[in-house]
């Protein structure tokens, strides 16, 4: 493989590493490794009195990462070289150079890690890489933005629906999540232990607690933006716990609640009574999945748009935010650099799918009407007529008159955590 701007030897080693397959890891593997249950796989005699169990675990994980990370980086570099459209964008080329640099640094490190000292040096290296790569998401977004301009001037394609680019971005972000989970887990294992946590995995994640925190954050953002926020009602299995990565779940729920709140406020108008957002947590003792449903009554999305909400290139938010973030003078003073880029939903779905779950949005689109005017009239009418009730044996049919509807988001999370990462075979 010939890489521009790098000597041929680098290209060769990347090509060689890319021929190896990536190892797929599950949530249970992460937990068990962190607890030292797999130590016998690496060390012949675990009665090694020189090191403690924790040190052994760290050495084992460091060794695994030293072998695994170059392979994964090489696959990413190859992908970046092959994508048809985006590889010409300057930001994408910067990302590729970044990956190659990290690859070189890893390859330069001693492949055998045996002592805690070596392991500590390796962890410093990984930490540098982790920091350096944290801007990749924004850089790729900028690359996509640059491509869009490129396309629009040339042809009349509907950019949001370009499947090839979307598949590439989907894969790229999914595997990026994978790499960051592995590195993040390793670095977290090096920290002093916290109760119930093994690295970044919490064995007693309570969806109820996480959703409550997400509600507070979302309500804060919504109030700051619009002046008011709708109420959120939670129901279902509030006492449930299962092993998961709390930061992921928080990201996903925050995204969904943000969307629901924004839709509700914008549909009904800032001064109106907001119908509450409902969150239902479902679980059973023999379940495969934990399911969380977020329903709002914010008007819904037309069915023709449902493909677009998963696109990395479509957003209904203010275009000036996009300009600020990825334009020539990026301004990161908004809530998050990604707000308004339209990335929240597809990335939330990648987080869900990474551990064997899924995220889907079902929408019921109602008719748009000038809300404040009609609602006032409706309330009067409602008060006058009350509710219409019809009786038939033991069945009651009740009827309300209203207008507009909303969206239901379903979050599926694998409960047992034994699903392997989705990686190419």
């Amino acid at each position, binding site marked *: 493989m010939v890489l521009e701007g790098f000597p041929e030897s680098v290209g060769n080693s990347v090509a060689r590493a890319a021929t190896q397959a990536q190892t797929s890891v599950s949530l249970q593997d992460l937990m068990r490794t962190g607890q030292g249950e797999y130590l016998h796989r690496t060390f012949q005699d675990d009665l090694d009195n020189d090191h403690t169990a924790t040190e052994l675990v760290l050495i084992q994980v460091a060794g695994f990462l030293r072998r695994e990370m170059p392979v994964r980086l090489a696959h990413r570099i190859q992908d970046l070289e092959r994508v048809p459209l985006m590889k010409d964008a300057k930001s994408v080329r910067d990302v590729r150079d970044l990956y190659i640099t990290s690859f070189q640094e890893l390859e330069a490190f001693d492949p055998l890690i045996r002592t805690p000292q070596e392991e500590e040096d390796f962890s410093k290296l990984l930490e540098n890489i982790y920091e350096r790569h944290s801007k990749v998401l924004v850089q790729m977004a900028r690359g996509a933005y640059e491509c869009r301009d490129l396309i629009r001037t040339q042809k009349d394609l509907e950019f949001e629906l370009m499947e090839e680019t979307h598949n590439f971005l989907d894969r790229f972000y999914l595997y990026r999540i994978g790499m960051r989970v592995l590195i993040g887990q390793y670095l977290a294992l090096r920290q002093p232990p916290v109760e119930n946590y093994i690295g970044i995995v919490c064995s007693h994640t309570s969806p109820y607690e996480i959703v409550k925190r997400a509600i507070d954050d979302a309500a804060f953002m919504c109030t700051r933006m619009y002046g008011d926020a709708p109420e959120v009602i939670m129901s279902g299995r509030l006492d449930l716990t299962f092993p998961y990565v709390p930061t992921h779940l928080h990201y996903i729920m925050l995204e969904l609640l943000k969307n629901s709140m924004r839709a509700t406020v914008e549909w009904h108008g800032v001064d109106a009574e907001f119908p509450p957002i409902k969150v239902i947590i479902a679980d059973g003792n023999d*379940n495969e999945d934990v399911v969380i449903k977020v329903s709002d009554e914010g008007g819904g999305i*037309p069915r023709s748009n449902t493909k677009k909400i998963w696109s990395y290139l479509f957003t209904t938010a203010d275009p000036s935010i996009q300009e600020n973030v990825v334009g020539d003078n990026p301004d990161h003073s908004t809530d998050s650099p990604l707000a308004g880029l339209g990335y929240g939903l597809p990335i939330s779905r990648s987080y869900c799918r990474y551990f064997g779950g899924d995220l889907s949005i079902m929408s*019921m689109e*109602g008719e748009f009407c000038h809300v404040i005017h009609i609602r006032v009239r409706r309330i009067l009418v409602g008060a006058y007529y009350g509710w219409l009730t019809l009786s038939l044996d033991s*069945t009651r049919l009740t009827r309300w008159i209203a207008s507009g509807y909303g969206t239901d988001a*379903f979050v599926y999370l694998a409960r047992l955590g034994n699903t392997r990462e989705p990686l190419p075979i």
Partner: protein
Amino acid sequence: MSASTILTAAAKTASKTTVRRAARRSMATSTRAVKKSAVGVIVQATNMPLSNIMPSFGSPLPSSGTSSSSRNNSRKELQKLSGLASAMSRSSLDDDTSPSSSRRSLIDETGQVNMFELQRLASLSPTSLKLGDMYKYAASADLEQRLRNAQFLHRELPIRLAQRAYDLLSLPHGLSSESTPIRQVAQMYVQYIQQFLEFPFPQTNSQEEGFTEQLQGMVMDRTSIPTTIAQGLMEWLDDDRREDFELGRQQEMEDALVRFFTARVGLRFLAEHHILSSPSQRGGDKLREAQTAISPSEVGAKDRGCIQHDCNPVQECEKVAQEVARQTYDCYGICPEIEIVDRQSDNAQVFTYVPHHLHYMLAELLKNSCRVSVERYMEQGGSNSTTAKISPVRVVIVKGANEVTIKVSDEGGGIPRSTMARIFKFTHSTSRQEYEGNTDFGTVEAGIKHMRGFGLPLARIYARYFGGELTLKSMEGYGLDAYLYLPRLGDACENLPRRVIASPGEQVSLPAPKRINKSGTRAFSTLAPNRQSANEPWVVESDELDEAGWEESKTRRVLQILHSRAL
């Protein structure tokens, strides 16, 4: 309409001569095979080069090796045009010299199906009808038009029935010969075709009424075909337990059944529409009653035919809910409360749709929801427990700019995600635990007690027929939400997306056609103005949001393409 009918006849004639020649040629080689084969379907796929005789369902002319004859054929068509008036009137079966007839009997003396004749019929190209036209003709009281409609149907229905029968009889892997119910259904269809061919071409209004009565006879028998298939499937699947289970075979059967039922919806739609739009209303009421156990809404002047332009979804839903509640109560002694939330604005209460499709889909969803709610209540202790109470079933109806959405949600415990893919299949095993449970306490379509497991896939076929969708989202341990999207057909059915605009579901019911020859299409472009859509790969176009459904449909498409190549 008449011009197109003439051209249809011309097409048939042209293809008949080429087809007959080729048939005679290969008849000689395969008589041996014919004699060897056992009683039953004549096996022909292995011996004859099918591409010579019937290249694809989409094009009436062979697309390979006979391009010179196609030029001859177009010349012949022009000749035919001049002499066709006489040809059309001649409908005698045993007049061999007439070019438009000489249809040998499809079923010969021994009771076997004559595959060559069937192929010949199946190779003719069906004509798509615009929904808007259908609706317009139903509303008008023009008897001339009605006669032309009847004549069109007289030619068109045998072609479509033949295609269905041929499709069923030529399933690969011997699916059609092993599974007797498939063969039975195909023979049933062949008998219908025979009836059509024997019935004289309607030329007066009285003949047309007779034709309508015959159509009615065909249509009134609603249950025998699905029941036969259901029973046969149960036997076929149980047999399959003996050997290693082959996913590919099940998928083929699944695809064939989807094609079959989609086309069947179309056939019945055409026929019923014609019957119900009869100005004399003879038998129309009986048909309406048979269509739905729900008391039909008043049939006004605008309600001719199946399509009702002022269908009020909330009222229809209430009717269905009452019926389902009554049945649940009869069966279990208790019934959940069915709440109907009407979220439509005042100025848009009605939309255009086919009421009995809507009834079927709603009944299916409500029946399932009621059943699981009752079962969950029983599990929690029923009337013996003080804390258990039966959860309500909630129906929300919303009308958007382009479609009406109906959501049916229950709290009956849901189903696991891994079994979700199975509930929409026709061929899932009937022995394992299913969502539909063990008792099917009767549906709106009276008497279909044997159709276990068919309700949901059929409901989805109905939904997709006009370009809508039915999606189920389950919350394991809590309940299930069903989303029914129904496109608004517009006041006169003119507001349709391009792929739905003509005889919807047509492209789904045909296997992937090959590219139509340039020289062939010129003569036939007026026949099927929307043939363009038949060139698209055969997909069930639906906005499947979940990845599993998308992957599934991709595999299906690949299998379909392979299947068509094998043909």
